[in-house]
């Protein structure tokens, strides 16, 4: 068998390093899910601030969202990891990863949520006011529940995006799947095989997550809330 084809024999390496790879995978899942949850909460608050806040608050939320979305995630991680220590803020790579991905994801989720808030029609506000609801009651009981429904597809997409993009934590050395891969490769020098394994693991988890999420979305669908997918 040629050397070229032999490079695709990866089962051996996969089995030998299964434990290390799974450790990385667990961290990847943790990072993605935690960032997703806190990013969603912060993102919804940002969207509310932008749509319903005072002029100053709205401007601040907009600035945050646009700046985060306009700069690379890696630059944001670097600022947290390298630029803060001179000011006495020393965060571990793991903390930076959780913080960075949460802050980043929040901006994107805020943007999706804002889109959904704007999709809630004027008639819904009028109807709420006509029942005697205050502005806040209207937002909490009428606008937000609908906006959240519209946002679900974007949010689930965001989870898949996070599963992939958390690999960037590799650059600052947080122990995710890719970092573990590098660790293995730097010992056995089988770069192609190891990274191929890592790529395949990502392929499997991303496709599986997409399928699972599709099923869940179908289950919780409410009539009248058609889904549009956001891409990032």
């Amino acid at each position, binding site marked *: 068998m040629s050397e070229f084809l032999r490079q695709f024999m990866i089962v051996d390496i996969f089995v030998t390093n299964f434990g290390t790879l799974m450790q990385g995978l667990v961290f990847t899942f943790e990072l993605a899910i935690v960032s997703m949850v806190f990013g969603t909460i912060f993102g919804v608050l940002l969207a509310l601030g932008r749509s319903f806040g005072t002029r100053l608050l709205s401007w601040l939320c907009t600035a945050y969202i646009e700046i985060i979305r306009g700069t690379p995630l890696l630059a944001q991680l670097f600022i947290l990891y390298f630029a803060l220590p001179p000011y006495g803020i020393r965060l571990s790579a793991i903390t930076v990863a959780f913080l960075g991905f949460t802050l980043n994801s929040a901006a994107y989720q805020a943007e999706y949520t804002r889109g959904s808030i704007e999709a809630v029609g004027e008639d819904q506000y*009028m109807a709420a006011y006509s029942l005697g609801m205050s502005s806040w009651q209207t937002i909490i009981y009428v606008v937000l529940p609908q906006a959240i429904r519209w946002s679900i597809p974007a949010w689930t997409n965001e989870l898949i995006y996070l599963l992939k993009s958390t690999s960037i934590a590799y650059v600052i050395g947080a122990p995710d799947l890719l970092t573990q891969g590098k660790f293995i490769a730097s010992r056995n020098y089988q770069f192609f095989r190891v990274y191929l394994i890592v790529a395949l693991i990502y392929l499997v988890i991303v496709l599986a997550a997409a399928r699972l999420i599709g099923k869940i979305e179908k289950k919780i669908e409410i009539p009248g809330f058609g889904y549009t997918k956001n891409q990032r």
Partner: protein
Amino acid sequence: MSDKPLLRIINLKKRFGDKVVLDGISFDLNKGETKVIIGPSGTGKSTLLKSINRLVVPDEGEIWLGDTEIVRCKNINAIRQQIGYVFQDFGLFNHLTALENVMIGLTKVKKIPKKEALERARYELNRVGLSGIEDLYPAQLSGGQKQRVAIARALAMDPKLMLFDEPTSALDPELIGEVLAVMQELAESNMTMLVVSHEMGFARSVSDEIIFIEDGKIVEQAPPEKMFKDPENPRTREFLFKLSELYGEG
């Protein structure tokens, strides 16, 4: 009970930019009365109704609901609870079932316990002829059903006054009847109602008075018999003729 009208509107004015939409509207509505407002589109009928609920803020004039002035009152939400509003485009909350739509005002605004609210909502849905659709979402209802849910939602709040803003104009012709029947029953049970509508059959049989508005002014107001048989103003005559051409005698 004093002889004070339930609703008194005094010299109401509103302009949007250069366009004068309401130009000095005044009229009274007594308890138990039903008045129907007619007039060409874009002549301020909707704005008038919205003003009464302060969904639009008038530039000038006064609106009295009993002893409370609405235009400048402090707590508008308390007023709105006493006024039922039925929209042309239904205004049902899309994320809630029919039952939940009727309940939300009771539980969140009036803070009525859930169990009580549930009972009341069932009762109101039943009253507008909609039992068995409690758990459907607005997207699953016909236009006529949606509008009846909207009416039930308004009624559940125990309003002193019901405002109807062209409640049947977004409906397919065959669905208009079921909504009008509910409104007629309501009028006969002595609900105080102000209705913007061009359903002349309804106006004729139910209303105490018809108010014809054009260019933000009341051109003529009269009981239906007088209005249909012998209108004073030539503009009224012309408009009613056009209506009967468009909609038939109703």
